[in-house]
């Protein structure tokens, strides 16, 4: 019975995807090699912007369990290193904001969550990055409206809003950004409060 269900799903796959699956994936590193130096520079700028211009107060180090007690949860992808958890405060928000950082290979990720009573579809960007980006896109992350912007192969950010629990999210990466990589990592870290 289990196998029948499995085969029913697999039989439904269209041939274009079957053909694609057997082709080599594009080599990301080669594609982005020209941008590598720029990525490093922009990465430093992002870090500087956090340090110099952040409106958020200095973070208090906490544990994942403490964040969970506040209703904040982020999936940590396999292979992540140098993981930190913190709580920040900001005059615009009553609730405290969670910040989780980690590194995968050479890429630094910063994820943030804050609870908000707002239901405005033009939701706020809580990432605190003020860089100008070459590319922008709108998308859906699961059921959540999302906005992203990035410099191809360099820094980028994704912000999304889960309206029912009233949670704003942001995720920034300091290199290797594209629409695809931002959405992929957004999906990887998104831990819906409903589950």
């Amino acid at each position, binding site marked *: *019975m*289990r*196998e029948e*269900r*499995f*085969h*029913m*799903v*697999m*039989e*439904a*796959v*269209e*041939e*274009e*995807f*079957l*053909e*694609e*699956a*057997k082709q*080599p*994936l*594009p*080599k990301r590193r080669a594609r982005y090699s020209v941008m590598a130096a720029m990525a490093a520079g922009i990465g430093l700028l992002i870090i500087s912007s956090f340090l110099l211009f952040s409106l958020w107060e200095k973070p208090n180090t906490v544990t994942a369990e403490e964040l969970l007690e506040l209703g904040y949860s982020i999936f940590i*992808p*396999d*292979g992540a290193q140098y993981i930190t958890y913190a709580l920040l405060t900001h005059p615009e928000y009553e609730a405290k904001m969670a910040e989780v950082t980690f590194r995968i290979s050479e890429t630094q990720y910063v994820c943030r969550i804050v609870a908000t009573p707002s239901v405005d579809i033009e939701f706020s960007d809580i990432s605190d990055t003020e860089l100008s980006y070459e590319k922008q896109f709108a998308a859906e992350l*699961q059921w959540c409206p999302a906005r992203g912007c990035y410099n191809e192969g360099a820094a980028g950010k994704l912000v999304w809003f889960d309206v029912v629990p009233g949670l704003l999210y942001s995720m920034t990466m300091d290199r290797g950004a594209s629409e*695809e*990589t931002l*959405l*992929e990592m957004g*999906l*990887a870290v998104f831990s819906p409060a409903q589950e």
Partner: protein
Amino acid sequence: MEQDEDLLALFRARAEDAIVLLRERYGRLCRSVAAHILPDERDAEECLNDVCLKVWNAIPPEQPDSMPAYLARVTRNLALDRYDYNHAAKRDSALTEAYEELETCLPLGNGGADATEQEILEKELRRVLNAFLSRQPQEARVFFLRRYWYGERIAEIAEENGVSEEKVKTSLFRTRKRLKAVLEKEGIVL
């Protein structure tokens, strides 16, 4: 597909060279698909013979849009038939592991669908699943199909794509989770 027009022309002309060219061009693909379902090399080789015969009998009249995808599907179905035949003796293939992984994300129905209901379900599943796949990042989609359609092992997918096994596992985990959410949202039960 344009590049296979010569191959299709040979089949249409009923020229036996069609089988030679088919084996030369796609033998490796077909062997790979069969080998992930049939652990015994002899079974996989016999499966390739079955594929040649099946395609010889099917073209014409069939006119595949994509020869590799068509052959992959024919090979997979024939390998599964042979796998079922050998079922009692051998149950240990990469695909068996894949069943178990994917099982948890397939919403369970009561199994009481009649033929008409089953047809509607399959049509709806096709629509929802392919829309879901088209929305996935290419890498996640490729990992998913290599694992669950082609039955490849995680280490093999990682090596062929130059990524870590952890990355493949994480990607598969996330894709299964998203698929489950979509199937449940769309009310698809199997």
